[in-house]
């Protein structure tokens, strides 16, 4: 375990060494942003709307009492969407979509000697291959999370219109009631941490792949599994520290 942690930290240190040429790295960052951000937009939109809708319907069902104001369902749905559902579930989905892609891409480059080719040219391979992915992850995953929050809350509103468990007006009142901006800060901090975990952990497993196609698949699986575990752990740490 300490060996793995040490190798991971050394790889991170190498990844952030001074680049050979900034413009080449910047092009890679832009390409990764497009791949991670635009490429994941569809799946994030779909899951966010459904999660927001389901959360609202379930909260409304659990609070269906004449003693509780209907607008409370909106408040609870808002807080749980911003604090937990959007950042964490988006991150778990992105670990599968972005993380497996990073691990298998770098792993394939390793087993087909493309990384060796880069090293022979004198390229700092962790820097060239990993840092653009991490920079892209810590910038695009928070943006995707913000989109997810907006769509999750919109999904809740749609659920109110469709199910009529609570009225849309009460839902909107609940969304605006007792809003504490700290939850948005917590949401952003979580998504930045998750972005870093997904990209760096999966890149680590991809970079140290050896063997062939079978091992590339195993690296992608390990990357996703470890990312998910670390996401949940980081979720607990950030929540405990900031709330």
């Amino acid at each position, binding site marked *: 375990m300490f060996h793995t942690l040490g190798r991971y930290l050394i790889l991170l240190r190498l990844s952030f060494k001074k680049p*050979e*040429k900034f*413009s*080449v790295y910047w092009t890679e960052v832009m390409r990764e942003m497009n791949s991670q951000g635009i490429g994941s937009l569809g799946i994030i939109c779909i899951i966010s709307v459904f999660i927001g809708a389901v959360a609202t319907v379930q909260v409304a069902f659990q609070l269906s009492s004449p003693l509780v104001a209907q607008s409370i369902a909106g408040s609870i749905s808002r807080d749980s969407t911003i604090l937990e559902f959007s950042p964490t579930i988006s991150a778990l989905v992105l670990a599968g979509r972005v993380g497996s892609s990073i691990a298998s891409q770098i792993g*394939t*480059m390793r087993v*087909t*000697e*493309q990384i*060796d*080719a880069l*090293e*022979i*040219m*004198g*390229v*700092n391979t962790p820097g060239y291959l990993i840092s653009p992915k991490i920079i892209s992850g810590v910038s695009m995953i928070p943006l995707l999370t913000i989109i997810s929050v907006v769509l999750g809350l919109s999904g809740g509103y749609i659920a109110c219109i469709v199910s009529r468990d609570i009225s849309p007006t009460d839902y909107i009142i609940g969304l605006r009631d007792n809003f504490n901006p700290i939850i948005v800060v917590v949401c952003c901090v979580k998504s930045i941490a998750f972005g870093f975990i997904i990209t760096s952990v999966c890149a680590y497993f991809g970079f140290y792949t050896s063997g062939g196609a079978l091992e590339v698949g195993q690296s992608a699986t390990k990357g996703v599994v470890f990312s998910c575990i670390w996401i949940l752990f980081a979720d607990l740490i950030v929540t405990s520290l900031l709330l």
Partner: protein
Amino acid sequence: MIEIKDIYKSFGENEVLRGISATFKPGLNNLIIGGSGSGKTTVLKCIVGLHEPTKGDVFYDGENFTEMSFRERVPVRKQIGMLFQNSALFDSMTVEQNIMFPLNLFTDMPKSEKLDRANFCLKRVNLEGKNKLFPAELSGGMKKRVGIARAISMQPKYLFVDEPNSGLDPLTSILIDNLINEITEEFNTTTVIVTHDMNSVMGIGDHVVFLNNGEKWWEGSKSEIAHTNNKELNEFVFASKFMRAARAKL
């Protein structure tokens, strides 16, 4: 000139190389030959720095490459071109982008000059007009030629080639061998080729090093191979009836 002195390399308990020493001169095709598992590719990877030797040194023009740090090795590596067994082209880039990649990273040339260099390299390997194709759209022989074009784009002093003929038909193999030979003569590169293809040995083997079980067993030129009494080398080179018949006619 490249010199390797007393190279040992172990992977765990398995000692793959045992005291290999050799000198590779510029303008010659230096071939490292041997059976599967004899340590040919490991020697090559020790020379270019992909593996660190357990013991021994590698010298590039008298400078000890083994003792250099990563940063110190960069200027040497800029003078190295390498063709890998599977070509190792970057899948996400076109042929042109593959060739221009080292130029983009290590030179301040204007784009037009880089394009001219890429076109020159492609012309040199007879692949004019293939600039916009991706590696997945190329045949095995074309990939090798693009690999050579990428390797020569920085006008290297040292050219390393790992199994240039693997997976190629005999005619394409000869084309690739001739191309490497022409480039070696034209640019006066120190070319080190790892192969077990006997056509390459007899065709372009200016200087041949034969490895057997991780040790250097024989060293000489292609013309000396036919007359050597080295048992292991004879068994390796003249394993086929065709080669034995060819030797008898010499």
